[in-house]
């Protein structure tokens, strides 16, 4: 069983570093846990989701491979895992869009501080 607290903390740190905003990072975390609530995942299984999400946004690769292994890691049914995968993909896309904006904001801030 995954230590969900450690995975959640790691994801929180990566998200806060990448987005530069604690509230946004917290929103992402809450989104992941809300999908877990919907499909009655245990905290350990949610830890797996956090861990996979964190690896994808940190490494920016192996997305398909990591998402493919979800079925083995979760106690959910196959149908549920498909839903969860689709949800995570959407969330990853959202993250990528927000990350671009966060990057631009950082540059603007830098410019303003000059």
């Amino acid at each position, binding site marked *: *069983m*995954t*230590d*969900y*607290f450690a995975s*959640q*903390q790691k994801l929180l740190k990566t998200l806060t570093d990448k987005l530069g905003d*604690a*509230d946004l990072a*917290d929103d992402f*975390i*809450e989104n992941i*846990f809300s999908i*877990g*609530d919907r499909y*009655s*995942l*245990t*905290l*350990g299984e*949610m*830890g797996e989701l956090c861990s996979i999400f964190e690896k994808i946004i940190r490494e920016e690769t192996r997305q398909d491979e990591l998402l493919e292994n979800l079925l083995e890691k979760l*106690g*959910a*049914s196959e149908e549920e895992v498909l839903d969860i995968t689709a949800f995570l993909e959407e969330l990853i896309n959202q993250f990528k869009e927000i990350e671009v904006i966060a990057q631009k904001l950082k540059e603007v801030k830098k410019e303003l501080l000059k």
Partner: protein
Amino acid sequence: MEGEPKNPEKKKTGYEKKTPHELEAEKKRLEKEIAEKEKKIKEKERIIEEGKERIPRLKRAEEKLRAKKEKAEKKLKEEQKKAKEYKEGAEKAKERLKQTLAQVKTGYFVELTPKRKFTDPEFMRYVPGDKYMALMESHRLTDAEKEHVTRARFKFCMDWIEHSPEMKEYEKKKGKYKEAFDEWLAHKDAPIPEILRKPEPQLPYQETPTGREIRETFRNDIRNIKELIHINNYMPEMFDQFAIVGHIRFPMIQDIRKNEAFAGRGRHIREAKVTDFIDIIEHVEKILGPGTEKDSKKYFDTFSVEQLEVLRKRMKSAFDGKERKEIAGIGSRSWQSPITLDLMDRTVLQGFRDSDEGDKRIIVKHLLLAYKAGEKMSEQNKDALRWLISVKEGPVFYNVVNVAEEVSIDLRKEINIEEIAQKLGVKVFSGIVVD
């Protein structure tokens, strides 16, 4: 000879002073010795000769043994192959049976299947839930027969729990662990026993196909409360088992509690689902004593940092196996225990979003007392407190300031939110301190 100097140290040969009779006796002794040695040499020569003769015989025996071994290995491989084929065959037969049972019309299944099949555990085990339900509602079977059907259907679960070597091993290890835990906790200054440094033994359901099947059955396959009602009617002992109830999803447990058909057993079933929590909480309650078992201040005063670490490690693995909303639904005795409150982070806290203000107040009060306990504060509680005071969702959940004053009076120490934020490395969310 007279001129030669006397030398008392001159080495004697041993023959100088012997009489002819003695010499003769010595000669005989030596001859006997030589004869014995010759005899021994001859014996050895004979053994060597015999050995030379035996070598081919030994070689032949070795060859025979090798041939036997090869034959045995070949046979073993054949048996293994057969076993594999049998296993695959059994798997295929199982799959075919499952498919056939899924395809056959429910009405035909109930009316035309010979009754004896309904009490065959190897048949009933693979009957889909809808067909089992139809059987339970059918007039073809008497009430007693329905009990037999139910017992046949879930026999594999009870067999695994009561007789499998994995479960026996687990029970043994768990018993030793709990005993060591109880003893150590009662002796505040005793060093941590080695057994408690290792992770607590967990249910071995993932290690065996049957264990996995039980989990799959109760977690994913049974989604109909009526099926659980039948199990409760005909085989209530199933719901005494953590190895069964632990897999049932939390929303289903809530449905059980609300359903009258469970006739007051709902609370018992919920307790069975959180046996892992109750085990730890009971230890803590025993130490804190009656009347103060929920007193967070006493909890921090009583347990050492080392003891808290071990308690939290145990509780953490129980948390990992629960849904987050489940923590809020495990009953006030369980979630209001300081050891449960101690493991609450931002994630678990949000499971209490819909709880009343009084419940939220209990959590926040524990967080502030934990903060005041300094190094005894858990990482999870730090995360929760950070979230409450620095993230916009935090104050929406509960305004820490509302409790801070009360705790300050209780402890006769002022609690300053700005100071907490600084120590936890965050900034106070701008909306929080403005009333």
